[in-house]
């Protein structure tokens, strides 16, 4: 759960002149998630047992399994493609929900200060009392398996970083001259927040959203690796990796290859997030 806090000096990628590579990789994954399932057929319930545990490149009854097949004869490449969609959809929804909740609470706490701020700080303390993944597991495990429950469980941990960043921005902005001016002119609180505070939070929030995206992808994979949360019909990288564990000795590719896809995505999104953070800062503002 502690991914992608990268060195604070110049990003490695930029020094090597490959600054766009992470964005390209992430873009590729997005394309695969959106269009891949249109090009490749996959049915988790269809289990041609004659094709089981074929190594990468083998011919199967339905064609060539470029990345091999799993213990039930299902194509690993297809699982990676469908898993990319699951990961991306869940991560995007979770980041959206976390962002809405976190930014709203953060801006209220930072702008209102006083007891509202104190209450929010204590609520965050309570949520931080548990290691994030444990809260996610308990929430996801308590309810019926569904994508929505997974999104809610992951968001229950994800909103806090958005709240922190937005609160910091709002705290420093409320003292600025233009905010004072708006207040003196009798502009309503809601309008001040919307027109004079929130726009400045956009940069840091986008950077935070990117880093959070990587963490959510990682957490979702961990959750489905443990077999909690997603319905049994869903295809997920964590699940494929878990399924391959029992065949490690004979079929290394089942667990290895989805893990490479997962790691590549997380590293790329993480570096992208750091590049954005370096550009927009964590709540740093133009003076």
């Amino acid at each position, binding site marked *: *759960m*502690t*991914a*992608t*806090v*990268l*060195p*604070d*000096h110049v990003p*490695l990628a930029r*020094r090597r002149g490959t600054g766009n590579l992470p964005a390209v990789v992430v873009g590729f994954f997005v394309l695969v998630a959106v269009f891949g399932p249109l090009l490749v057929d996959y049915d988790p319930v269809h289990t041609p047992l004659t094709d089981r545990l074929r190594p990468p490149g083998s011919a199967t009854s339905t064609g060539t399994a470029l990345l091999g097949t799993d213990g039930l004869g299902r194509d690993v490449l297809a699982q990676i493609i469908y898993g990319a969609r699951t990961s991306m959809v869940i991560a995007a929804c979770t980041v959206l929900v976390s962002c809405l909740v976190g930014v709203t609470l953060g801006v209220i706490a930072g702008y209102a200060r006083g007891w509202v701020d104190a209450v929010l700080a*204590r*609520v965050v*303390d*309570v*949520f*931080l*009392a*548990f*290691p*994030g*993944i*444990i*809260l996610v*597991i*308990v*929430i996801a*495990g*308590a*309810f*019926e398996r569904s994508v929505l429950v997974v999104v809610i469980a992951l968001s229950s941990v994800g909103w806090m970083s958005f709240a922190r960043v937005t609160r910091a921005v709002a705290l420093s902005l409320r003292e600025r001259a233009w905010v004072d001016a708006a207040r003196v002119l009798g502009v309503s609180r809601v309008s001040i927040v919307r027109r004079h505070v929130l726009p400045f939070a956009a940069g840091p929030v986008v950077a935070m959203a990117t880093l959070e995206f*990587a963490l959510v992808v*990682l957490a979702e*994979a*961990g959750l489905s*690796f*443990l*077999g*909690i949360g997603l319905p049994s019909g869903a295809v997920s990288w*964590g699940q494929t*990796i*878990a399924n*391959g*564990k029992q065949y*490690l*000795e004979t079929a*290394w590719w089942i*667990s*290895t290859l989805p*893990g490479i896809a*997962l*790691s590549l995505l*997380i*590293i790329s999104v*993480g*570096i992208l997030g750091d590049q954005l953070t370096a550009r927009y800062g964590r709540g740093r503002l133009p003076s």
Partner: protein
Amino acid sequence: MTRMIVRRLLIGVFVLWGAATLIFVIVRVAPGDPAQVLLGPDASPEQVRQLTATLGLDRPMFVQYLGYLGDAVRFDFGESARLGRPAMDAVLDRLPATVDLTLTATTIAVVLGLVLGVVAGGRPGGRLDRVVSAATIALQSFPTFWVGIMLTLLFSLGLRLLPSSGVGTPAHLVLPAVTLSLPFVAIVARVTRSSVAESMDEQYVQTARSKGLTERQVLLGHVLRNSLVPVVTVIGAHVGGLMGGVVIVENVFAWPGLGSLVVDAVANRDYAVVQAATLLIAVVVMVLNLVADLVYPLLDPRIRLESAS
């Protein structure tokens, strides 16, 4: 000092109350009749009614909540029907295995992280620095469960050096502890690196160099000591993350600790154990955070306790 500790303890008690309440709410909001869940699908309606009465589930929610809090204070979370024994006993049974795992992983993380950090920070921008930077990025991004499986593939199935799962000998501890430690190796290395790199321009380093000490003596004798404070800080701050990693790693390696117990309990809706285990973890994390906060001023007298609170 005393005031600060009292203040921290009061906040801690509040946080634990909040944590206990949060878990109570989640468990009660969850669908399914707890009595039915405990007895399984084959139970007769009469049995369900009886257990509902025994557990007090027919009382008003607020009364149940007060009763729950009262029990929680005494660390009594009731019987686990699945395990046939008090939930807290089952949890405490699993604790030593988790302590072994986390202590070993922390030791690895500190030793390896310090070495990498000093090596990288001793010459900022050098080749080793860049290699270590790249390695820390990778270590922090790889999913723990996948790393565990890859290490198993390499060291137990490929090279046949280490057992792939279970407990018993110290050899059983190696793969789980290394897997758990890797993200924290990266964190410690990163923090040590930036603090060492910063210190290299300090006057005391110049003094040490002008005394004719070798670069190694300067690094180990002077710079490293001053870099320990942020390392303690970062370990304190990541105790929670370590406990989170335990959940995953114990499941990869079938390690019989708290983490695998929690996942088991959640999967089987064994809420007595879920409550006991999660709250125990919250207590442990809170106590360790407090200890870390109390240790900084001992390492660095410049840190005023007031500012640490």
